[in-house]
């Protein structure tokens, strides 16, 4: 029972996390290069919109001679490219014209909302333009057979796998390749980068735009892998959550992944609890216990990673860990009174949990030193 539950929750968590992760990666790329990006929402929205237009119009014009997946891929590309273009605007405004990056981010959001709504109103009444379905689920042959992990990680649609790949790749690339080294140096201390002949401006343009492409993916996945068509404002705030996820993940892809999964998981749980077959109190206690355990684990990792002697004492960590386990154990012993929490409160889980975890175990998040500061050569 619990393992089935866990599987369904986790795979739903991953599905819910995917757009957030793409969005966070977008923010990460541009902020690592020193450009604040609160325009993620707008870029994702554009991506979603254009991905739909691309796929729908393509299949309409080609009269469906191609396999729907072809149209979907076309839509995907269109979405990516147009989001990248929007990011280009952000880059021009904040790098070339040096207007405050928060402002140009706000501009991006306003423009994206206005334009997509406007065009959607005028041109895409569903009866005239209908979606062409979504990408099919690919079961990875052998891996999907693994108990528990298989169904959680290897029974997804392609863009989820792409997301896994991108997270791992960027984690590697940012910290282990010349490109990553330059990216970070430009975000941390552009003068230094400049002094060894790295083109700061170019680097920033490049990465802001690449980031936009990622946001495009984040928007597209909502259309091409879940909803199947564009709906106005369908990002409904995910761009801002992605922003939080990025900071939460301390500007690293893996971190963002973890943060987004936590978020997606608790949201999934909130929905799952509406099924009414789990005692709400029990579930909340279990979550709390898991959070505690997670905390101790992360502390442990930080402790091991630390160069100096900083960090929590092993005893504390161990204590917390065992505490979590005991709660978990006790939770399964006692009988909880049957209460049903109002759905709005179940919906609060991700946000509350984020705050708790954030204050509980994530070390003071400090972004790239030069982020937000336009680069003046002379």
């Amino acid at each position, binding site marked *: 029972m619990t393992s089935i539950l866990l599987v369904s929750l986790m795979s*739903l968590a991953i599905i819910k996390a995917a757009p957030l992760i793409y969005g966070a990666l977008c923010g990460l790329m541009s902020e690592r290069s020193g450009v604040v990006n609160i325009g993620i929402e707008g870029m994702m929205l554009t991506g979603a919109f254009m991905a739909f237009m691309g796929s729908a119009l393509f299949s309409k014009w080609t009269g469906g001679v191609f396999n729907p997946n072809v149209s979907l891929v076309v839509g995907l590309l269109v979405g990516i490219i147009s989001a990248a273009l929007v990011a280009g605007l952000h880059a021009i405004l904040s790098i070339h014209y040096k207007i405050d990056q928060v402002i140009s981010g706000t501009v991006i959001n306003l423009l994206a909302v206005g334009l997509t*709504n406007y065009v959607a109103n005028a041109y895409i009444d569903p009866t005239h333009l*209908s979606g062409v379905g979504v990408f099919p689920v690919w079961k990875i042959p052998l891996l999907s057979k693994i108990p528990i992990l298989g169904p959680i990680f290897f029974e997804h649609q392609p863009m989820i796998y792409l997301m896994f790949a991108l997270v791992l790749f960027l984690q590697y690339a940012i910290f282990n390749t010349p490109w990553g080294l330059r990216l970070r140096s430009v975000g941390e201390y552009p003068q230094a980068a400049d002094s060894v002949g790295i083109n700061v401006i170019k680097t920033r343009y490049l990465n802001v735009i690449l980031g936009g492409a990622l946001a495009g993916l984040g928007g597209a996945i909502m259309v091409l892998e879940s909803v199947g068509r564009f709906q106005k404002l369908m990002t409904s705030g995910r761009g801002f959550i992605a922003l939080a996820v990025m900071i939460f993940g301390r500007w690293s892809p893996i971190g963002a992944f973890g943060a987004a999964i936590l978020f997606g998981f608790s949201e999934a749980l909130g929905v799952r609890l509406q099924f009414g077959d789990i005692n709400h109190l029990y579930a909340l206690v279990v979550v709390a216990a898991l959070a505690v355990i997670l905390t101790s684990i992360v502390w442990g990792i930080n402790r091991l990673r630390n160069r100096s002697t900083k960090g929590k004492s092993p005893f504390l960590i161990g204590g917390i860990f065992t505490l979590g386990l005991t709660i978990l154990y006790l939770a399964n012993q006692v009988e909880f009174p049957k209460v049903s929490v109002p759905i709005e409160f179940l919906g609060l889980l991700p946000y509350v949990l984020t705050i708790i975890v954030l204050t509980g175990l994530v070390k003071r998040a400090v972004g790239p030193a030069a982020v937000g500061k336009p680069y003046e050569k002379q």
Partner: protein
Amino acid sequence: SPAVQTKQPTAVDQPVTQEAPQGCAYKIGFVSDVGKINDQSFNQASWTGVEEGAKALGLAKDCISFIETTDSADYETNIRSFVEEGYNIIITSGFAMGQITRKIATENPDVYFIGVDQQQVDENFAPAPLANVTGLNFHEDIGGFLAGATAGLMTKSNVVGGVFGCQFIPAVARYEVGYYNGVKFVNPNAKVIDIYHPGSIDVCFGDATFGSETAQALISEGADVVYGAGGLTANGAMITSCNQGALVIGTDMDVFLTLPEVKDCIITSALKDIVTGVSDLIVAVSKGTFPGGDTFGPSMLAPYHNLDAQVPAEVKAKLEDIAKKLASGEIDPCVPFEGSNPNTFCVPVNP
């Protein structure tokens, strides 16, 4: 500084101010509730009703207009600006505008008002009809009940799901109660999983992605029929369910017509025929038969369209029968029974 500059256009404008659509027997205005006129749900239905009605009266395109409300603080000004512009039939959609519509109506007895989902009650919620206001209401609980019965009869896995918009919107809550009880009524040992969007008004009707993700959860839980009630959120759910091979049931309009993505897996829709309701009332104005007070539109199921063949005759018969009993009041979706919705509670709709 900004303010000075925005004045620029005003200069240009004075001539235009007087301009107004010429040669309109009637000028019809529509004020949407917070939301968009093509939310593919009740706002859109009302607006389509306006267009139909205008057609019926042979009015020119610019004899009708709409205002989309973005903030409930604007209800009053939005309605009034139609009055000031000399519109003589004004449609306001959504319960939230009920009281303010009545207020403005009493001040303007010669303007006709149609309030969609608005019961004609006074401050103390006692019935209080006005001659120039007609509330167009529906028994969503009945529609939901029919949808539920359909789901209960069509499911093979004996697990059915429903994805709903905001719980705090009475109509939605009634759909949910009706749906649940409908399933249980025809199929007591079926499992019903109803999910509301937990968000606030700005997202709970518009979050297609949530609907879609929820549908996936429902289906992985074994649901093979999914009912969607709640604007774009429901659309997301229906499309995804359809893509994943489940049957779906729609709400309000005949979703077969409004959402082609689901045309091959939609059994039917719980109709809430706002379109006909509104246009009929508009025509009634011209005929001088405008009722005033509360009217109740019919609650019925849409045609089976492409799935007509898949729906067994006895199922169809059973549904007919239930429909009759509901109409006659023999069955009341809002009365709890063994295994009915734990919180069976319909915000009263006096018959």
